[in-house]
């Protein structure tokens, strides 16, 4: 059975076959920026936006995403997201870069909801995005920079 998914403003017909949204994005749509790191909803590397809300694509069944607007890292290249990405580069808020797409997704949503976040608000919102390289001090600085506060 086919379903219709709207991803980054384009419409796709796919056969979910019981798979998670992440598998469909990566395997069928070749949107490889979104990463699988734990498959357990524990790390945030698979973060995408569903109607503007961040969700773990490794947990969400693809079928459940039908009728919703999905945005992946590939669809985040303008406006606030671009400012976040530029700040991540300038502050070196990434090392290996594997968790970075998920970090950028979460940081973009954070700034959309809270344009001038405090450190505590950054910590609370970003705590679901693990970075094993330990770029956290610079992720915090990058978010403050993108908010125009550093």
């Amino acid at each position, binding site marked *: 059975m086919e379903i219709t998914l709207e991803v980054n403003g384009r419409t796709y017909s796919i056969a979910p*076959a019981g*798979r998670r949204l992440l598998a469909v994005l990566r395997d069928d749509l*070749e949107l*490889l*920026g*979104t*990463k*699988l*790191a*734990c*498959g*357990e*909803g*524990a*790390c945030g*590397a698979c973060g995408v936006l569903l109607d503007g809300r961040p969700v773990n694509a490794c947990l969400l069944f693809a079928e459940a995403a039908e009728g919703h607007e999905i945005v*992946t*890292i*590939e669809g985040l*290249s303008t406006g606030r997201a671009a400012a976040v*990405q*530029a700040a*991540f*580069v*300038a502050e*070196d808020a*990434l*090392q*290996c*870069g*594997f*968790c*970075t*797409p998920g970090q*950028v997704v979460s940081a973009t949503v954070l700034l959309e909801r809270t344009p001038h976040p405090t450190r505590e608000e*950054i*910590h*609370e919102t*970003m*705590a*679901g*995005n*693990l*970075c*094993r*390289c*330990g*770029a*956290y*001090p*610079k*992720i*915090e600085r990058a978010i403050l920079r993108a908010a125009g506060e550093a």
Partner: protein
Amino acid sequence: MTTRFVKTQKEMEGRYEDVWALVDESDETTSWKPDADLSLVGQPAPRQDGAARAAGRVRFTVDVKLAGMLHAAVLRSPAAHGTVRSLDLAAALATPGVRGVIGPESELSLTTRAPLLQAEPAYAGAAIAVVAADTLEAALAGVAALALDLEVLPHLVDMQEGLNEQRFTTDPTDEARGDAEAALAAAAVTIEFALDTPAHVQTPLEPHAAVASWDGDELTAWVSTLGMFAAREELAKAFGLRKDAVRVRTEFVGGGFGAKQGAGFEALAAAELARITGRPVRLVNDRHAEQLDGGRRAATRQTVRLGADRDGTLTAIDADAVVAQGQGGWVMPVLIPAQTLYRCANVRALTFPVKTNLRAQNAFRAPGVMEGTAAFEQAIDELALALNMDPLELRRLNHADVDQVSGLPYSSKQLLACYDRAAELAGWATRDELRKPQPDGLLRGMGCATQIWWGGGGPPSHATVRLDADGNATVITGIQDIGTGTLTSAQIVAAEELGLPLSQVRVVGGDTGPNVYGPVSGGSQTTPSVMPAVRSAAAKVRKTLLQLAGDVFEIAVEDLDLRDGRIRSSDGAIDAEVTEVTGKLGDATIDGSGSRGPNPDGFVVHTFGCQIAQVAVDVGLGEVRVERIVAVHDVGRIVNPLTASSQVEGGVLQGMAFALSEEFIVDPTTGVPVNAHLDDYKIPTIADMPEIIIDYPHVPDANLPTTGTKGLGEPPIIPTAAAIANAFAHATDRRAAALPLTRARVLETLA
């Protein structure tokens, strides 16, 4: 051009081997002076690939997709020890979509790493069989169809039990200088301190992964590895191929921290299945497999006895370490801090590598030395307490002016400057103020620890620089950039030497195809090994370019200089864009190759540092909060302060988690790890991070070839846990018998 062989020593994480190094004696670069007028080296620069990383456009091994590619799934032992009674390979092969199956009894074409698959798995997670299929789902169905029948055998996972039964992976070692026993007996002050350190899992977010594809007898393998040339060597040997018939590609690695060495099981199994099926094969660990079988820092049980004179002079060090090796692996140098950190004539170091039913332990950032420092530097603090001395003062007093094992001088050592700077930044002088009652009811304290590590690098390491008509340079290296920013450091060094802006220099790596050798990304050796080779290659291009400029402008080469992308004559008559010369190249290029010369004889090359931690302890909850870490490390010249501080922050956070939250827990009854997932193996989050203050002595190592740089991968993780534990003791007057300082352990310790 005079190319010579020089016999030298190659060091990797404290193991030395004699090697012949290929050295180009026409290399005329000399070391940059400490006060050299450098325009790019030492200035912060964002990564050359930062924008692509931030946009999710870079491709890791897990992102490789090839036409007709099969997906592999691995059957792993559910038990700590067992023997396979039956395995239905035929049923797996008959599963729809399955194209190939290998098990312990299969005849394999590869000749090494035998046996690749285990008929008698000796740890939970050991690979028993691999299935390759059109989809991952089909491969998993094939694994289920194998219907493993495993007879469970007795296991041993407790290191004390292993020691009692004298089950060792290799013979225990007993290293001594002087007479520690007699010196302890004669010492005015003695202390004894024992510590258990936890197993610590690297946990790279990109798991071990490989994609293998054959074209006739030529193999291309994308491998998530820290050493693509080692992977090439391993694959060539395993399949009986010429080295140039194997191409390994490792452009981006999603973290490794020591775990991803060589080709690994993944590339070997993927290549074997690709050979059998005639299709490319992808093998990627799922998270559970990664945590079970990706590797770990071994758990240890250490005891340190120290003896000192009344004035604090160390007279005796007697240390022993039981190391839970798992199934084997090299024995990490746990007692190196005891043997080398301070001046002491009487030292004994006993190491017991115990064999347990876990995967063989492997490298995790500063293997051995980090867990050894966690125990030894707490013992030093205990001695300071017994002597009623300032812990930092005791460390200064026992400063080792020369290497304590060989007696040789250090190539450079700025440890005393690190102590001074760290103390100043942390407010050490007034640290006892923290122990006064606090309005928030928390107990506060401050502790320090010293760091020692190798990190001098050495040959072999090579680089090629190619300058084109547009004045753009490409630096071809054999580096896999695992997130350290090494490619960007190479860009800075090449641009500095070429006198070009960063925007005109691009560094490529991640491919053994060009056959420009770079070392494994490990042991803090990449930067000090690669940068001199890059500089040497760039210097040759610069020299040729100036010669050509002399031809174009009809002026003596000696009168020309190249800087900021312009060629200028000393009399000011010529001030031209580089392209006025390179533009005449047409489709030709100016090429230069460089190699890393040997380190000088007669010196020991080490890195040093000091970290100071400030913690707050909630005695009701048992929670330890690290408020601040000051990290000052002597690693010679800093090439890129932006990425250097990222390395330090990452090391500190991993060290902090080792002290507070990370512990790989094995159920003693079943022998099976119980927290091999990301939701229960607690790596730090952004909410856990302390303030991290970083500095360096900024003294280039004048005895190291041409760039004066040492490595920075390992140093920052080494002293963090010890500094935190010492701060905890300062705050609470108690010392835990084990790490990590989880709430339960803290409450137990304070009870």
